[in-house]
């Protein structure tokens, strides 16, 4: 196996979601240390509550308070907690049917060890110190051997109900670009642009992805292209991108490198933005410490004739 390039890749995003009336009441209730379920038309109480009956799909809105105590319906011992999970010490995942509810809620149970957990055991909610209207307002459950707690008779109406949740998510990867793109990136490190030729239609793809999208066959033959090329089409960027230190307006262009059958895209510099045109001949400008051309600038050659690049538009 050839040397494989790889790099860490972090995908991080906050999911911002609005809540329906039932979800809003439930999560606002958690903030206020009140547990709410929703009653279905056949008289069952669902906790956590949903907006529509999971069996009949009817809209359900009848809120009913349940107790912060309940019974474990199944469990699983997690000896190695993972990032983002409710506790950072070993704990049991549990489904808990709260007193007054007919369905079970997923959460964590803080217990000394698996021998201290069993289906049917009694537990109660441990509230988080700081609460915002989220499922994590329940810090976890804890073993409990007292009486079932009594609901307070809350109506489910709140003065300042939460209307949405923001759920941050992060996933970590070690990304490898594969054979063709690794070769391309290695050549770039030597300031060369190397594409691959399709064995069937003979087209040269830059950057190469390992397959000819027309023929559906593997490409392998390396072909060095450029460094000069022709602007086939372009646009003028007028909005400054976040974290990008480039003054607007600037030109972003499709550039067909000499010898390539597919245009790549890059920024055009060294010329006022309003003088860039189709057919402009350009060459790459490398800067110290970068792994790809910083931008392309005019070569000063006469413009390419339209017929020479019209197939690459």
């Amino acid at each position, binding site marked *: *196996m050839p040397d*494989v390039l*790889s790099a860490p890749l972090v*995908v991080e995003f906050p*999911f911002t*979601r609005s*809540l329906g009336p039932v979800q809003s009441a439930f*999560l606002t209730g958690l903030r206020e240390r009140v547990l709410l379920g929703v009653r279905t038309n056949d008289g069952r109480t*669902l*906790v956590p509550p*949903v907006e529509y009956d*999971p069996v009949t799909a009817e809209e359900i809105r009848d809120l009913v308070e349940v107790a912060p105590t309940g019974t474990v*319906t*199944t*469990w*699983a*011992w*997690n*000896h190695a907690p*993972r*990032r*983002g*999970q409710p506790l950072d010490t070993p704990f049991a*995942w549990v*489904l808990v*049917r709260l007193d007054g509810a007919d*369905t*079970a*809620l*997923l*959460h*964590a149970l803080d217990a000394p060890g*698996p021998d201290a957990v069993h*289906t049917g055991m009694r537990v109660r909610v441990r509230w988080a110190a700081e609460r915002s209207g*989220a*499922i*994590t307002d329940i810090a976890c459950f804890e073993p409990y051997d007292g009486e079932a707690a009594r609901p307070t008779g809350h109506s489910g109406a709140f003065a300042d109900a939460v209307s949405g949740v923001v*759920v941050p*998510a992060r*996933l*970590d*990867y*070690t*990304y*490898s*670009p*594969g*054979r*063709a*793109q690794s070769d391309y990136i290695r050549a770039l490190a030597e300031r060369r642009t190397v594409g691959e030729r399709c064995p069937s239609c003979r087209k040269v793809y830059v950057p190469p*992805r*390992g*397959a*000819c*999208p*027309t*023929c*559906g*066959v*593997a490409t392998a033959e390396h072909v060095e292209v450029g460094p000069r090329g022709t602007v086939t089409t372009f646009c003028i960027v007028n909005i400054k991108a976040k974290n990008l230190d480039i003054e607007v307006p600037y030109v972003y262009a499709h550039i067909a490198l000499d010898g390539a059958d597919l245009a790549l895209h890059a920024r055009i510099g060294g010329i006022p933005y309003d003088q860039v045109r189709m057919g402009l001949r350009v060459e790459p400008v490398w800067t110290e410490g970068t792994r790809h051309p910083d931008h392309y600038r005019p070569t000063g050659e006469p413009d390419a004739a339209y017929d020479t690049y019209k197939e690459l538009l």
Partner: protein
Amino acid sequence: MTSEEAPGPRDIAVVAFAQTDHRRSTAESSEVEMLMPVLHDVLDRTGLRTSDIGFTCSGSSDYLAGRAFSFTLALDGVGAWPPISESHVEMDGAWALYEAWTKLLTGDADTALVYSYGKCSPGSVRDVLTRQLDPYYVAPLWPDAIALAALQAQALIDAGHTDEPALAAVAARSRSDAAANPHAQLAGRVPQGDYVVRPLRTGDCPPVGDGAAAVILAAGERARRLCERPAWIRGIDHRIEAHGLGVRDLTDSPSTRLAAERAGAFERPVDTAELHAPFSAQEVVLRRALRLDDTVRVNPSGGALAANPVMAAGLVRIGEAAARIHRGASDRALAHATSGPCLQQNLVAVLEGDPR
């Protein structure tokens, strides 16, 4: 069209199946580089070229490798230019096959290429799968895929449907059968190991790996010309259960049973069942839901416990069942695919070969 002229449903068959060797990592290949040999393989088995295919449908998830729009890049391996009739589902390829089957039923196409791939190696699939959960009440707790499967396993143990030795036996039988499957990732004698999330041990969990699979469907006479013994799809159906884990009875799979009923699985006994049960305990649930007794050969390929390329493992079940019919090792087989936590969504297909 008058009722007299209305044609009956078309007979549609799986006529070819191909898959990669499933491996812990394919870091040396991009998605399309991993997939392309399988596409060529499945086309070669029928002599068809891309331009002969009426409809192409794929299944994959960008979250697995963290690469946006990887499915559009994967299309390069098909040769999708000039544009082809094509579709994609962000699901296991079994559901892509369902879409293709529907397309062929309408008569819009006579042949279909169905493929799917999963590259689990770049990320942590345990954590990636938490992102498919209820975003309000469940996903913020990051319950990983093994934790949820463990809750289901404990519920089964509590209900008296299985115990740890029985689960170990499912795992051992799967890996032992996989020794005859050259594509399997985990085969032979594999220790049950320690608890990952109790009661599930390493051996109860699927291997994490990369792989791809492809199937060709054809209708009627076209199928007979492309394959000596087509695997006719007698029925196929998929059903889903409530997304709230605490609403469901985790010891049962009513959606599997209903899908099987609609697919005609209970009309006559099957001789083979390829079940998509990534965790040992899930085979226990599925056997009960599908009323499979000891006369049925379950997962002769080794199943998902031997290779679990996520998004392809369900399509592999259909492909493996069809391949057994192709080579005369089965006359009537059931194939099952699952999606979501604790067997939330289930697809059942019934395949038959012509009488011998």
